[in-house]
């Protein structure tokens, strides 16, 4: 379980250009949840993610993960990194080793694990991201395609076997096929590992389809926290923050405004199609 209490972060505190990136953020994430975070560019999403594994220290407030306060200065950094795996935007830019296997082994190697354990983890995480271990292990990561590079980079974080996996826009810059491949992979890992998965996305369809809980960040504050149904029901507020509805929900909303009698809360294309068909039959 993750409990974030009164989290505030101020950049360049005390300097003329100081700015409040996070302002008194509170939320709780239950074990096994899949959480989507949405917010406009510059709303503080990335700052929030970096707090979750101790890369940034809060100006005030606490983050407790499974009973461990990771904002406590006595907590060992490596323990936090072991607990929470953070995949940055464009993670393929952090690849550096000669071979895929060596690159994936970087994280577990830093944890000081025995060699056999490292090898086992490398094989497991490369397979977990849907790559053929034998085929890619000795290949240079720079020879792979964009989508494959990203998979290797994600494998590098998975090899730390984190209890919480955090992904910052895992599909940014990928083509539509690679986009769905990566998301399917993330979903699959989530189901197999039963961990907490947190992901940031600008694609409301993905957020609505995949998450159990949605956090909306606006100007450093937690504006909404609820199920996709609850969050996307607040259309006006979302639009005021420069956010959109999932495509299906947008169509239903437009039709309702035109006077068609449709139920609220259709998020997927299937739900919307059924609702529209039912309304037309009347």
């Amino acid at each position: 379980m993750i409990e974030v209490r009164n989290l505030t972060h101020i950049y360049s505190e005390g300097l003329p250009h100081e700015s409040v990136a996070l302002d008194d953020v509170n939320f709780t994430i239950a074990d096994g949840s899949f959480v989507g975070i949405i917010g406009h560019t510059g709303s503080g999403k990335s700052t929030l993610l970096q707090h979750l594994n101790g890369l940034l220290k809060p100006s005030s407030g606490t983050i407790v993960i499974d009973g461990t306060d990771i904002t406590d200065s006595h907590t060992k950094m490596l323990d936090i990194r072991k607990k929470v795996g953070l995949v940055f935007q464009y993670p393929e830019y952090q690849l550096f080793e000669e071979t895929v296997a060596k690159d994936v082994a970087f994280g577990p190697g830093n944890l000081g694990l025995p060699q056999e354990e490292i090898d086992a983890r490398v094989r497991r995480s490369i397979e977990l991201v849907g790559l053929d271990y034998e085929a890619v292990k000795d290949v240079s990561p720079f020879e792979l395609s964009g989508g494959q590079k990203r998979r290797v980079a994600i494998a590098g974080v998975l090899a730390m076997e984190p209890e919480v996996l955090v992904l910052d826009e895992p599909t940014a810059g990928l083509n539509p096929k690679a986009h769905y491949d990566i998301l399917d992979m993330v979903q699959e890992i989530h189901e197999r590992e039963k961990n907490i998965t947190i992901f940031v996305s600008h694609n409301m369809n993905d957020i609505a389809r995949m998450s159990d809980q949605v956090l909306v960040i606006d100007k450093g504050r937690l504006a909404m926290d609820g199920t996709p149904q609850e969050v996307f029901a607040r259309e006006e507020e979302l639009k005021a923050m420069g956010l959109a509805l999932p495509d299906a929900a947008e169509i239903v909303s437009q039709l309702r405004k035109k006077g068609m009698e449709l139920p609220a809360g259709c998020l997927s294309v299937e739900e919307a199609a059924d609702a529209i068909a039912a309304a037309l039959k009347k």
Partner: protein
Amino acid sequence: MIRDITLGQFYPGNSVIHRLDPRIKIIATLLYIVALFVVKDFAGFIAPFVLLEAVIILSKVPRRYIWRGLRPVLIIIAFTLAINLFMVRGEVLWQLGFLHITREGVHTAVFMGIRLVLLIIGSTMLTLTTRPIGLTDGIEALLSPFKKIGLPAHELAMMMTIALRFIPTLLEETDKIIKAQQARGADFESGNLFRRAKALIPILVPLFISAFRIAQDLAMAMEARCYGGNVKRTRMNAMKFARRDLIAAILFCLFLAIVVAQRVLM
């Protein structure tokens, strides 16, 4: 952190100093540095100090900002002080083993220290009050007489502009890579020198790759807009020699005269 380096960073403002012609500021800075080496005794530093104070006050750049820029070079200053303190021969004041401090050593160390601080703050003022673009335009204008003997002034200036432009980008990139590797448990702060040097590889390799990628994208974007270095280009903001530049030049000549007179007469 690496972001704290102000050397070569512009402090936005609209003061008299900011608006001076970059050409004047560059020449003045160069001559100011020369003047610091003309000085031969402590009294000689009064004129440069007054000039620098005047420039700082007029520029309205906060002093904290200037000090922050001085911090990274403090090591160099400390090193120079130590070398001078211990290496200069003369009347011994204090001795421990092979180490000895002499009266002349103290004198030279303090003298060199003042000279260095004045030099660094002086040149920092140039970059703090001049936009990088203004700086390179100024350098290009000053170098253009040498075009006749085959010096590629425009190309040099363009290279400098690009290099300056990408310092913040690369710093940001470095920051991101460091964080990404830290998230994978990388440790840059402990271990001996060899271990620490080795710990830099996961940062340097991705950084080089990023730098090449950025350079390639930029080259492509420039070519797509038909950039050619050797054609005669005009400027959107042509540099004009205004009255304040003339006043500044006269005042600066006065300063030079004082420095030279002090050296010759005293």
